């Protein structure tokens, strides 16, 4: 029985240069079927086959959540990043087959809100595009304040302003325009929820200011991007047979065991259920425990590991399999 996150086999059907820094990609299912629906704020993890390396990068879905034909994302080129955005900009062309994860939402709207107050900076606009479409379809009450470097680099600012007029406010850095956050937070009706997505400095500024103005933390939401669950490659030795199994950078130990034909138990594959708990016979190095099953004491002892999520860094690891 195999489990885990479901994947989507998609074909790139459109690549559009939005401006000097941003490209938009449109994906449709390769089998012609429908995309899953999603909630505004969700992201998908894009798998990129970059030579021998598989890159896994999360991008916010910006298309209308009700549109079952396609997903669209916008990617800002990051010259200093780990290489995913450069790969998307340089290598991905219409007609390419790619793999996406099902949507995951870590930046959901609080549907109890009487009003949704959105603060976006730069490429942080993307999750709001889907949320705004969702709210627009259900007569939700929203107001967007969007900070961009220049008009030329303000992705989708013109379209938003044209469609939603006085519900959208755009601020240009090069014109010395800035969001007057204190005044903005001061004038909101009871039941307003605040959302922020943008550079880390902006998120910190908005959260800090909201707290100083007495906003309850439950009413302040920010996007915290999921880092890929990968790590350095390592070798694990099976005590019963002495076999050595290589665990790749983007592979879990459980996946490596399975790929080698070892019948290892599991249920949740998320570090919660305890089913794959494995005894460590000996080790020389450090564990990277990522599960929430083992207690802190057990983790400190170093005689157990959860191969579905946890990793190892060091010279040798022998497990009881």
């Amino acid at each position, binding site marked *: *029985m195999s489990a885990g996150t479901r994947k989507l086999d998609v074909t790139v059907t459109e690549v559009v240069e939005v401006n000097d820094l941003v490209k938009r990609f449109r994906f449709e299912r390769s089998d012609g079927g429908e995309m899953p629906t999603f*909630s505004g704020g969700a992201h998908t993890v894009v798998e990129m086959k970059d030579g021998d390396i598989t890159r896994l990068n999360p991008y916010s879905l910006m298309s209308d*959540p009700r549109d079952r034909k396609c997903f669209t994302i916008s990617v800002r080129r990051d010259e200093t990043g780990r290489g995913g955005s450069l790969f998307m900009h340089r290598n991905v062309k219409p007609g390419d087959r790619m793999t996406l994860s099902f*949507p995951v939402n870590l930046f*959901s709207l609080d549907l109890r809100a009487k009003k949704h107050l959105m603060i976006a900076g730069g490429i942080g606009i993307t999750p709001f595009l889907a949320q705004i479409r969702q709210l627009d379809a259900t007569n939700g009450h929203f107001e967007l304040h969007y900070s961009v470097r220049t008009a030329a680099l303000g992705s989708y600012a013109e379209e938003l302003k044209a469609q939603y007029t006085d519900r959208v406010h755009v601020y240009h850095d090069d014109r010395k325009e800035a969001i007057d956050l204190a005044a903005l937070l001061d004038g909101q009706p009871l039941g307003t929820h605040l959302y922020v997505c943008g550079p880390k400095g902006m998120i910190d500024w908005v959260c800090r200011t909201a707290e100083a103005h007495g906003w309850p933390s439950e009413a302040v939401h920010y996007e915290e991007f999921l880092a890929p669950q990968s790590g350095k490659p390592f070798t694990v030795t099976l005590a019963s047979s002495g076999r050595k199994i290589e665990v790749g950078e983007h592979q879990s130990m459980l996946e490596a065991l399975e790929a080698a034909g070892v019948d290892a138990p599991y249920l949740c594959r998320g570090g*919660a259920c*305890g089913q794959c708990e494995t005894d460590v016979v000996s080790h020389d190095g450090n564990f990277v425990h990522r599960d929430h099953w083992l207690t802190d004491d057990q983790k400190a002892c170093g005689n157990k590991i959860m191969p579905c999520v946890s990793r190892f860094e060091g010279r040798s690891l022998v497990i009881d399999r």
Partner: protein
Amino acid sequence: MTIQFNDETFYDDYTFRNSEWAIRRFPFPFHEDSYMYSVNLEPHLSLRPGSVFEKTFDVDEHYVSEMRDRARVLAEDPLRCQSLPHMTLAGWDLLELIMDAKAREYPDLFELHRDGDRWHWINKPLGIDQTFTFLDETTLPCGPMEYITRQAQGDFALLDHRDDNLWMDAGMVTTQADWSLDFDIGMNFYEWHAPVPKAHEMGVFQRALKFLLNLQQGAPVRRLNWTMTVNPLLDTSPENYHKWGVQKTSVTPENVGSKYHLRVELQTLFRLPRSNALAFPIRCYLIRLEDLATVPKWGRRLHRVLRDLPEELATYKGFIRNRPMIVDYLSQFDDGAETSPGIWPD
């Protein structure tokens, strides 16, 4: 396979019966000869054709009568179905999930035709033919969650996901093992689980909540839970405890095998796409002890599990009073032979 639907009752004269087919596919919950809490979640994938784990939402011979019983309970107590205002979108998510799965998995019983937002739903067993506009409540006779859960076996809770917790903010609950939606509505995961003994100290709920908050769209999970019920009552609610609680005193050594039922809940959890809420269907299966014991492995094992169950659990599950009588009855099916691992009959 065409299902022959029973005409039966779950109250008063209790004409509920399991056919031979229903007995053999009963979701026996014990994979070994003892029981303790665990976070026993596994992916809700199709398993063993004919079993209750095969389909997304199992439909069996009790479907029509269970839906009639739900309507009866709701007529007496409308508060069994509640949805806080922000949960309507989750209700539509649930309606889509159930209609889509049933039409796909039981094409001889259910049909769903979509033309954009204009949907046409046909439920043949219940004789329903409804055209409506998706996401427009005014085109259905009631809210979307109530509409679809009057046509789906089992209870349903819709859990809002916010503030790193889950909140029971909507539900349809008429076949419950002694808990109340009206009491729990608006509570978070820790609050509604507060009455469960032992599990808090074991850290079960912290682990379970963390896992559920990570539950992903397209990757539902399931688990089994169980208790014991006198007479085949679906509605063992706190609201009606004065009616059914007293029935525990009607059990005698002569009738224990036919009166006592093992009550098993097939609980599933789905991430809902539009609302980001979780759907928590709780499907109840009942089986008389004398029917269960027709599967020799189950008779042996249930005897051992109930005999050795910690006192707190037997109390919490509400059968401590009659446990000696039940164990005594079941002992006749336990010859001491070894039982095979797993839940399936030999």
